[in-house]
């Protein structure tokens, strides 16, 4: 039974990956390649002995931005478009559970993002190599949390897409991602708005997905050590949030009348 369930999930995963590739999502890699080539060629002359740092920053930031755009705009369509186009109905008539469908979609887009991030990482290393900069594995300590953050964006997008239309889901997901990047502002809110109750500030801080957790770009670019336990806790946090968000999405999808 587990084998059957796993193979159904993997079938949806593979199909979602194929679908995203067909939608030319990976074309963003071309932009990335152009950006990296230009930065490699120009930054050495424009910046004063800062080109390595800027190339790394640009590469890592591009991974995050392109990945987030894919995660939001493809993520919100994964379920809601299937419902709006009514293509979900024949699928559910087959022996495929709604939960399996949702997990398969999540893993499919997750795999697309993994391919995307991996290709960009190779591109970044290639640029550093081409400009005669040292290649350090430490860069992966920033790439890994970026990927975790992207998975969380997909989970949030899926949750919203089961609650509302794809357009509104995109708006809510973008708003959540942006708000989550300001979590430090939320945490320090009482420094400015003294009257804000502490329970409210803490509540918002812990409820919002904290996307700053996944931002280790500065530390890695400056060569600061990132302890393995910190990465572990970031992984634990991402796992909890992803499971809760996907669980919520699953509960909502199962309760929907799709007959």
């Amino acid at each position, binding site marked *: 039974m587990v084998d059957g369930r796993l193979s159904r999930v993997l079938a949806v995963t593979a199909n979602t990956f194929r679908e995203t590739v067909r939608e030319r999502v990976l074309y963003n890699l071309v932009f990335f390649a152009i950006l990296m080539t230009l930065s490699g060629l120009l930054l050495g002359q*424009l*910046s*004063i002995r*800062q080109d390595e*740092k*800027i190339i790394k*920053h640009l590469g890592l930031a591009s991974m995050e931005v392109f990945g987030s755009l894919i995660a939001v705009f493809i993520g919100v369509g994964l379920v809601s478009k299937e419902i709006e186009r009514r293509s979900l109905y024949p699928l559910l008539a087959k022996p495929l559970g709604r*939960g399996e469908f949702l997990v398969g979609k999540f893993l499919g887009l997750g795999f697309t993002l993994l391919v995307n991030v991996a290709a960009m990482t190779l591109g970044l290393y290639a640029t550093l190599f081409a400009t005669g900069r040292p290649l350090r594995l430490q860069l992966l300590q920033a790439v890994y949390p970026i990927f975790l953050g992207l998975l969380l964006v997909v989970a949030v997008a899926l949750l919203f897409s089961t609650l509302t239309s794809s357009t509104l889901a995109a708006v809510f997901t973008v708003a959540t991602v942006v708000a989550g990047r300001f979590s430090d502002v939320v945490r*320090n809110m009482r*420094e400015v708005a003294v009257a804000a109750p502490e329970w409210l500030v803490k509540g918002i*801080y*812990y409820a919002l997905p*904290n996307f700053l*957790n996944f931002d280790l770009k*500065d*530390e890695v670019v*400056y060569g*600061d050590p*990132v*302890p393995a*336990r*910190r990465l572990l*806790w*970031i992984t*634990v*946090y991402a796992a*909890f*949030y992803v*499971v*809760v968000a996907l*669980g*919520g999405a*699953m*509960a909502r999808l*199962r309760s929907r009348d799709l007959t």
Partner: protein
Amino acid sequence: LTRPAHLLLLALIPGIPWSQVHVDEWAARAPERRPFLYLQTGRQVARLFPGFEGVMAGIYWLRAVQYYGSQRAFAEEKTYELLGPLIEITNALDPRMELAYRYGAIFLAEKWPQGAGRPNEGIRVLERGIRNIPTSWRLRWDLGSLWFFFMHDHKRAAQTFLEAAKVPGAPYWLESLAASVLGRGGYRSVSREIWKRQYENAGEGAIKENALFNLQLLDALDTVDTLNARARRYAETSGRPPSSPRDLVAAGLVAGVPRDPTGVPFHFDPATGLFSIARQSKLWRSTYEE
């Protein structure tokens, strides 16, 4: 979902804040983030964004204000190292943005840790502003204030106030202010005059608030002097310094527990029997310029 699955899902929710607390703990051990400027001069920014210099000036100004605020409020090592370049870029992109010169100079000149503690840089910003906006008497007035408060060069302060007075549209009182700086009154009374004018002439915002702060600080310092004079008188008449402010109240020298203009009671040191501004007051500073 089945009922146990719902319960499992609910049980997982506390895991989010629990893991966040651990992530925060590890993040707090990491070295402080060092802000970094990709483009170091206004010329570089203008080259990259032709036709959008005004918008970029606004963006850089916002960044300068945010940077100043974050250094002042949150940074462990308050270096303010990017403040100068951020202000220079803003000025270069929009040379007529008067506010950027005025606030920028204050941010730079204000004593560390409230500001960068680099009055020379603040003066350079205002001199640049005067070159770019020669019709602004306010920039000259600010420059004079910087010479007075931060460089303690009363002669140059007065000279700058007089130059400001010659600009068409300048208020009448600049000349008398120059006279006060050169001779009449002590440091505190001249300071009060400058801040009073600043308060009256500033629109709502940080400049007005800063002027109000300084007026309140001067009031508090005056009150401390009065209270300490009465405490000394008490010591002379009773043969011992007061052990608490209540002694002064009982002797009829003070009406009640003395508070500063922000409402915080003054600190009383039982060892010396003297008053000072309490540490918890927002008026408290490690040193006061006199």
